[in-house]
């Protein structure tokens, strides 16, 4: 009798103690219900497997950083945190400040499963120890695409084959010919090039830096040292800023582009106020795919969505660079982190390892309908990436090889991206009517001040 009671008491305490184990996870809210559902499924599977209760909080992309920071400062950080903008804004900074847990024990064994230029981007420098290690976990990535309306192009009197492949001819085509043709035919006051320029927008600096890649300009070397004082670099920057900004003065970019936040070029595109835009994901096309399958919409709306996705919208890469070489795209790898002072490090690592298994990660990535591209080899072999007109192009762009962002070499570039010195320079030219030279001087001075 006594033994049974002791056993029951023991079981009770042990049982309750084990049942009470929780894992606090912060994640970013998806753009589509399927993404959120895939994450919920993943979490449910994990809970079932380990008996650990997961407290999942979802935040919008802009909130993910402040909320994680608030929790950190209050001394109760989440165990696992993932944010769509962590790589842009904070991952490098946190690693440098020594706030992140070293994840090499999870990631090094998986190294062979990753595609090139993915795992390398989380090999970050810890300034406290002076050493690099895997301080974040990569989940998915994005790159720059062009999206345009085929039907608007047709109404302007052109075919897709008419689009030039050379850099200057390409932008000239959209800016003067396509826009003029469409305006003449329909009388509507639309614009052809939806170039994001908002300082508050990551699309803007992504696009501007893509232009910088097209001009072959590198501002930092592989060791993180600044190259902005080199005359060739300066010259390239001036040419690039001038090129990016001129579409507003030429009248083919809407003036409100200087105020656009990330969704706004999508919005302008969906409303057919612009003919083409460059965007850091194919979210524009994917929205119609999502609508196509949304039973809350009417049949006509779904049919319209289907026509838009399959027939009217095109995803494409950029034209060839000004020097004639094929375009090289930069890719941003989206990461999550584990804070070194998390309460439940052991389970946190288990969760990350679990989430990164192909059978869990792939449904989550594919739930975004092509907006995010995988980081693992097995995932890109799937039919998902070849059986769809838009995703096919994305797959081709990534397969041709990508380059990483500056902040993977020098984390201070996250600060410059947050301030958006790039969009500021464009705004100086467009809004304040400065010369590109003066704007670039201000920009490089600030780059040196922050990252030098």
């Amino acid at each position, binding site marked *: 009798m006594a033994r049974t009671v002791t056993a029951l008491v023991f079981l009770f305490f042990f049982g309750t103690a084990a049942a009470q184990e929780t894992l606090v996870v912060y994640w970013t809210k998806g753009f589509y219900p399927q993404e959120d559902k895939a994450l919920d499924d993943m979490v449910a599977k994990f809970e079932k497997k380990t008996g650990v209760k997961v407290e999942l909080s979802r935040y919008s992309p802009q909130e993910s*950083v402040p909320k994680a920071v608030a929790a950190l400062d209050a001394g109760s950080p989440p165990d696992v945190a993932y944010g769509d903008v962590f790589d842009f804004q904070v991952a490098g900074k946190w690693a440098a400040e020594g706030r992140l847990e070293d994840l090499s024990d999870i990631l090094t064994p998986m190294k062979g499963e990753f595609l090139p230029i993915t795992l390398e981007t989380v090999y970050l420098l810890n300034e406290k120890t002076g050493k690099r290690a895997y301080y974040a976990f990569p989940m998915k990535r994005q790159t720059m695409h062009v999206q345009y309306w085929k039907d608007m192009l047709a109404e302007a009197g052109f075919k897709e084959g008419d689009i030039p492949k050379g850099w200057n001819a390409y932008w000239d085509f959209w800016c003067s010919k396509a826009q003029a043709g469409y305006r003449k035919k329909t009388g509507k006051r639309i614009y052809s090039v939806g170039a994001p320029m908002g300082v508050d927008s990551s699309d803007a600096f992504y696009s501007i830096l893509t232009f910088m890649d097209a001009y072959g300009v590198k501002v930092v070397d592989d060791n993180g040292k600044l190259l902005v004082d080199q005359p060739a670099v300066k010259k390239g920057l001036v040419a690039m800023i001038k090129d990016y900004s001129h579409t507003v003065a030429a009248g083919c970019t809407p003036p409100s582009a200087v105020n656009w*936040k990330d969704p706004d070029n999508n919005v302008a595109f969906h409303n057919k106020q612009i003919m083409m835009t460059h965007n850091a994901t194919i979210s524009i096309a994917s929205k119609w795919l999502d609508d196509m399958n949304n039973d809350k919409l009417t049949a006509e709306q779904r049919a319209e969505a289907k026509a838009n996705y399959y027939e009217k919208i095109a995803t494409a890469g950029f034209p060839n660079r000004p020097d004639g070489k094929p375009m090289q795209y930069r890719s941003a790898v989206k990461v999550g982190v584990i804070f070194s002072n998390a309460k439940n490090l052991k389970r946190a690592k288990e969760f990350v390892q679990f989430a990164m298994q192909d059978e869990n990660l792939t449904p989550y990535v594919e739930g975004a309908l092509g907006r995010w591209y995988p980081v693992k080899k097995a995932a890109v072999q799937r039919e998902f990436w070849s059986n769809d007109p838009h995703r096919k192009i994305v797959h081709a762009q990534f397969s041709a090889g990508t380059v990483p962002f500056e902040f993977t070499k020098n984390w201070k570039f996250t600060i410059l991206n947050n301030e958006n010195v790039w969009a500021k320079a464009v705004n100086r030219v467009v809004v304040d009517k400065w010369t590109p030279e003066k704007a670039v001087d201000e920009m490089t001075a*600030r780059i040196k001040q922050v990252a030098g």
Partner: protein
Amino acid sequence: MSSIALPRSEPAAPVKPPRKGLSTWQTWGAILIAPYVLVFLVFVLYPVSYGLWLARHPASYQTLFEDPVFFRTVVNTVVFLLVAVNLKMALALFLSGFFVHERRWIRWLSVIFIIPWAVPAIPTIFSIRFMLNPEWGIVNSLIFRLTQQDGPNWLTDPSLALAMAMAVHIWKALPFWTLILMAARLAIPRELYEAAGVDGASGWQKFKFVTWPSLRTLYLTSTLLSMIWTLGDFNSVYLLTGGGPADLTHVLATLGIRYIRLDQVDQAMATIVVALPFVLPLVYFMMKRLSVDEQAR
């Protein structure tokens, strides 16, 4: 205190006037005031002290002054304060005179007039933001339909955008101050106006010699208070332009929040501390004013 002779009846228990500090009354006074004192200590004193402590690093201020956005923000804030507040108070003064006219339709109008102040900021400021969209907003669409010309870039030209933020602020805050001045006007005895009318005073003279002297103090006090509050007007700028374009329409209130977003909390606090030399003298002045009125009672 009371000078009326009251009939004394047999008291049930000995009654002493509170002035002598009878413990029951004073105890109850302490108990009843305790909740607010607690609220003040926990939610004002501690946060303010913590905030000031966070802003103690000189490095934060240096980074703040080096940020190219900061100088523009200060300029914007000063312009906002001087122009928006004075314009608003002048309009409030004028409209308060309008609303005291006794007409049925004016009374109805005064009820409608309060709506901007009573309804929440998000719906209305978003509505104005969409109205002013240079591409598809109804303002520019109307201008295009009437003149075949593109309307101005309301929210993308930095000066226009700031002007629009000021307009939004005035739209929202004007009813409150109009109401205050209206109440003050109604407190002026009619006989004064009638007497002035008998003496042959014109409308303007009535204002100058009857209305203004009575309103003057309140007007100045209100302007001061409005300046303090406008310094903290976050919604008008944030919800209309978000500080854009290119962080060119930020004011001190929105700049602090921008730093929070970028995980630079020390700088957020530094922004607020920098504004204090402007706010605290005004606050001090207001408080002295009100306690002077207190003693005058």
